[in-house]
């Protein structure tokens, strides 16, 4: 974990709402793992005082090039969009607990909606090296928003894309699709990000099929380090529901612990 000033290698639109940025993190000695994030200063304008958290989308261990996929949401991401290659990005990371895989070499299922796919993509990219395969259900409102599908395929994942536009993304349909995939591919673990409803569905399936399951959670953050308790959210622990810090105790949690109502 370091406060880096990393050179921006590229920063370009993927479609009209999403952008991709790559930075050079050779200054970082430690490894960067799927599920972790960087806390980024989007501008030095005091309209965007706080840093914003962005997940690792892609990390190349050899070239030490790190990529983010980000949604243009408000003033921070609007400012980020304006950064040019060659400029330096002020970021702290890698932060947070990464995903973990259960033992064995069974395939894993990823279920993402919207920009949640950014976080899961890093996992898809990592598993082939462990001799495993990732199957991904990618859900979005519109076909244009089906993000990272090509990137996922290139990383060796099998991708099932569903959209509201096509009427293929109801919980019913996704549930059936997931059931089928779990059986067909002998899935041993599920990972989800980006939608509460999707997470609930996966929580049920994981219980029923006794699968290892994790979720990557989101919360507004101040420090990003674990000091301020700004990001604390309810999580189901042995002793009952506790407020835990998403930034340092998460963002990845066992899916069964997620409080999704």
């Amino acid at each position, binding site marked *: *974990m*370091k*406060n880096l000033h990393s050179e921006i290698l590229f920063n370009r639109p993927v479609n009209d709402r999403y952008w991709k940025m790559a930075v050079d993190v050779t200054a970082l000695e430690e490894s960067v793992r799927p599920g972790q994030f960087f806390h980024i*200063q989007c501008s030095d304008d*005091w*309209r*965007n*005082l*706080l*840093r914003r958290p962005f997940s690792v989308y892609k990390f190349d261990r050899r070239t030490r090039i790190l990529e983010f996929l980000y949604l243009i949401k408000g003033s921070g991401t609007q400012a980020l969009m304006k950064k040019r290659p060659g400029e330096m990005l002020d970021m*702290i990371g890698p932060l947070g607990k990464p995903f973990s895989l259960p033992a064995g070499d069974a395939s894993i299922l990823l279920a993402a909606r919207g920009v949640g796919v950014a976080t899961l993509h890093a996992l898809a990219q990592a598993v082939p090296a462990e001799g495993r395969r990732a199957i991904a259900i990618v859900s979005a409102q519109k076909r244009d928003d089906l993000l990272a599908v090509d990137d996922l395929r290139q990383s060796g994942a099998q991708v099932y894309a569903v959209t509201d536009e096509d009427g293929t993304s109801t919980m019913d349909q996704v549930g059936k699709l997931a059931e089928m995939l779990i059986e067909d591919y002998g899935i041993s673990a599920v990972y989800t990000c980006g939608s509460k409803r999707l997470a609930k569905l996966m929580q049920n399936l994981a219980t029923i099929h006794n699968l290892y399951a994790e979720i990557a959670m989101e*919360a*507004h*953050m*101040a*420090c*990003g*380090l*674990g*000091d*301020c*308790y*700004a*990001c*604390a*959210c309810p999580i189901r622990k042995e002793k009952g529901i*506790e*407020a835990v810090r998403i930034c*340092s105790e998460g963002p990845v949690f066992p899916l069964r612990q997620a409080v999704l109502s």
Partner: protein
Amino acid sequence: MTWRPDLSVKISKLMLKNPIMPASGTFGTEMSPFIDFNRLGAIVPKSITLNERSGNKGPRICEVEGGMINSIGIQSKGIDYYTEHIIPDFAKYDVPLIASISGDTIDEFAILAERLTGIDRVAGLELNISCPNLRNNGIAFGMDEKTTNELIRTVRQVTDKPLIAKLSPNVTHIQDTALAAEKGGADALTVANTFLAMAIDTETRKPKIGNLMGGFSGPAVKPLIIRLIFQVHQVTSLPIIGSGGAMTGQDVIEMILAGASAVQVGTANFMKPAAMLDIIDEIADYMMRHHIDKIADLIGKIDLE
């Protein structure tokens, strides 16, 4: 050649090597990879309560122009965990530890103060009397002079540690609560806690803070804090710790000129984890540029002609 200006200041019995300390709630051990704690003037961990508290529902913070609003709700593991873990964690640093305590009743403050008085490593107590409490219909202790006085008087009876009252800025005349704290036996005053504020998301029409209102901090509040420090400095000779909007060494100098003896840094830590060290360097640079030997000579030295 290598003359370095003297940054040391005194807060009651506490000798600080420089005027910079973290603001309670914005600092913790997780910052240690970024900052050498030994370089700080003091350490102020997050406010502690008697019993465990889970804090407020989210979102607990939101960003606003020039600052942020927080409503953490003092999530705390209680005093036992604090004495067993937090204090020992900081004990390895050669820096005075100021314990910030908070309670729903005056008794809770007193019990906490008593327990911490027994611990050598605790150099002083900061009383967070400026957060809403249960007894008085959501009104902070620090918004009322009588309650402020009673609270400090009660705590004063159980401890000989330096007592720092953290005042509320949400009052008509801060001079009144400052004097009430002084008369109650406070050794120093922190000016001040956060400003009660609110923000609404116009897209969803929902409050941006789960708890509706919260405390406003960051650069935007500095002109209010400078005024409050000046007003308090005019009526009391107690040392003042400025708190609110210090982002740079220059901001700290401004607070010192207004009457502060030391300054807490809060929101700036979130922007730059090493902010406090940069600020200390900027203070030293300012002093060298202006040929000021001792920072203590600048306290309250605004030039009013």
